[in-house]
């Protein structure tokens, strides 16, 4: 067991993978000399040199396009997009190129790139630097999507992403980078595509992912003190989506909360809620309730920012009302 931060675990995953696989290189803004806007790649350039830590100009569309060309030419790029908020500049390269190349070309070739980025609120970074845009990715067939919520998953999901034959969008959460946990990275991880049941309870199932897992676990502890026991599912990857685990837990309990930081309307929570409602219809005693981000931009002002995403308190109270 060692104590690691989420940031360190990500760095370790890159380090270990790059040692093992010569074809991996990192490409993006400030990934080399600077060490990444959030310090994830710090120091890697000293070990691997500027050829494998390629600092780029500020040219997001061409960065992804370059990664695509490199991936089609036998390399395994890890492209970093500094903020997921910038994905709107790259959705053409990502959605029309990376996601479709294998299919359009009849299976001739894949695009094994990993797009590392980070999103979410928590740093008063304003409307253009605080969003959760994973729904764009989840709605694009051909793109895999991983969103680690724990230190151990930061490591393992990134390692696994780096073995996949298809483009993986890997979204970190800016408010998790300093999260510390005791981890033993040598323990066999959960397989790729499998959700983790972080807690078992018989009163309610809460389905979530990324940073909201932390909030949900806090809420679950508070609920437990009030004799309400929640099962907490951390999805880990949204594509593939482990619906079997969700189904199994929901069928046992019949009450479900879906928690996501992203804007509610047409977000990932909608997909989860819809699938649960459709597929577990006969097991639900109550409507599935979505606790999600407000349908508005995020303000720079700290209170408004915090108020526009789910909080442990709101999760706790909604769960309580649903159970009672």
């Amino acid at each position, binding site marked *: 067991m060692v104590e690691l931060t989420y940031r360190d675990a990500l760095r370790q995953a890159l380090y270990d993978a790059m040692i093992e696989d010569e074809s991996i290189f990192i490409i993006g803004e400030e990934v080399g000399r600077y060490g990444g806007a959030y310090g994830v790649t710090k120091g890697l350039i000293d070990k691997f040199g500027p050829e494998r830590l390629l600092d780029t100009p500020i040219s997001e569309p061409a960065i992804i*396009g370059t990664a695509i060309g490199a991936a089609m030419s036998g390399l395994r790029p890890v492209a970093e997009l500094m903020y997921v908020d910038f994905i709107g500049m790259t959705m053409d390269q990502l959605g029309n190129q990376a996601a479709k190349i294998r299919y359009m070309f009849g299976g001739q070739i894949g695009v094994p790139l990993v797009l590392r980025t980070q999103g979410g609120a928590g740093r008063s970074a304003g409307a253009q630097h605080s969003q959760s845009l994973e729904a764009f990715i989840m709605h694009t067939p051909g793109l895999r999507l991983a969103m680690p919520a724990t230190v151990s998953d930061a490591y393992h999901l990134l390692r696994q992403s780096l073995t996949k034959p298809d483009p993986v969008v890997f979204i970190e959460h800016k408010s998790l980078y300093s999260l510390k946990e005791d981890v033993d990275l040598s323990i066999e991880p959960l397989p790729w595509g499998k959700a983790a049941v972080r807690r078992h309870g018989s009163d309610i199932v809460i389905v979530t992912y990324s940073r909201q897992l932390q909030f949900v676990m806090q809420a679950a502890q508070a609920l437990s003190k009030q004799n309400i026991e929640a099962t907490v599912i951390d999805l880990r990857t949204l594509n593939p989506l482990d619906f079997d685990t969700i189904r199994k837990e929901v069928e046992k309990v019949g009450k479900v909360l879906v928690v996501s930081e992203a804007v509610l309307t047409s977000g990932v929570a909608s997909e989860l809620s819809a699938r649960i409602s459709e597929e577990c219809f006969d097991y639900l005693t109550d409507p599935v309730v979505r606790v999600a981000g407000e349908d508005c931009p995020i303000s720079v002002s700290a209170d408004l920012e915090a108020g526009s995403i789910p909080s442990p308190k709101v999760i706790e109270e909604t769960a309580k009302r649903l159970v009672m």
Partner: protein
Amino acid sequence: MNMTEIKLKHIHDARTNSRLEDLYRQMRRVRTFEERVGELFVRGQSAGSMLHLSIGEESAAVGVCSAMKEGDSFTTHHRGHGIFLSRGANPNLMMAEIAGKETGYCKGKGGSMHIADMGLGHLGANAIVGGGIPAVVGAGLAAKRGKTGAISVAFFGDGAMQQGILYESMNMAALWDLPVLFVCINNQYGMGTRIDQATKATNLHERAIALGLNGISVDGLNVETVQETAQKLTDDARVGKPGFLAVSCYRFFGHARMDKSPYRSEEEETEGRKRDPVLFARDNIIKEGVSDEVLDIIDQSISDEMDSAIDFAISSSPPPLSSMFRDVYGPNEPEPEPVQTRINRILARE
């Protein structure tokens, strides 16, 4: 060997095949191929109407491609049949793909605008204007790192000159000294927009120079000039000096098969079509002393070849419905669940 083949062999043995003759032959193959694609459309056998013919632009495809080597890679825009053919594509597989057939290069899933062959270094045609450009930067990176000696070439139209991603890509290629060449086939039009209606800066190569690349514009009438210029630029690219080449020509027909080009005058079209790189080459070969008859035989053999391609395409089957979920993801990866399967499960709940 059929009769035409025997005649051809005879001619070939009798005299040294000139370089120009070879370039002519290649251009004629492109021309004839495109004419047949047009027929495919008229017969209602093409997949959709989004067929962009490169008639009039043969010297750009052939001139640049003949300066490329085995192992080089490239991407093209939506008007890329001629380029692909010039890099060695099999016309049968191309025509089948254009017809949306299972026997095509992409199993009938891609079509004219999404054709590719990794074996020939074709990283893909693209229906997004400018969409295929940055991939060559990545391919160039890989070539440089692997010291393969290969270059990667992006082909695109004059319309793509106003897409921002081109500048980002050229800047990166220059910054990293990559073995990359950007080739703009300036056929004067992006759909109905003449180049001078899209930009004040019609000396296209100057933009590349301002970003630190080699940059040259060349008239596409004479394929030999194109070939020589491309040779210089590919030689430079191969040693890490990326370049840009604009080849000016004229789009003989409409933007796509449905477009009758009402936005330009007949006189303009007549003038434009006089600048025919295929006929220009033919005339020059004749001036070198080769007879019309010899060239006719070449043309005929090409015509036969392309007829077979049509036959191959038409007699092939479309991809089966069962192939719909194949190749969304890599082999042995979880596949998408068909909507029907999900519906069946939900409705079978009792």
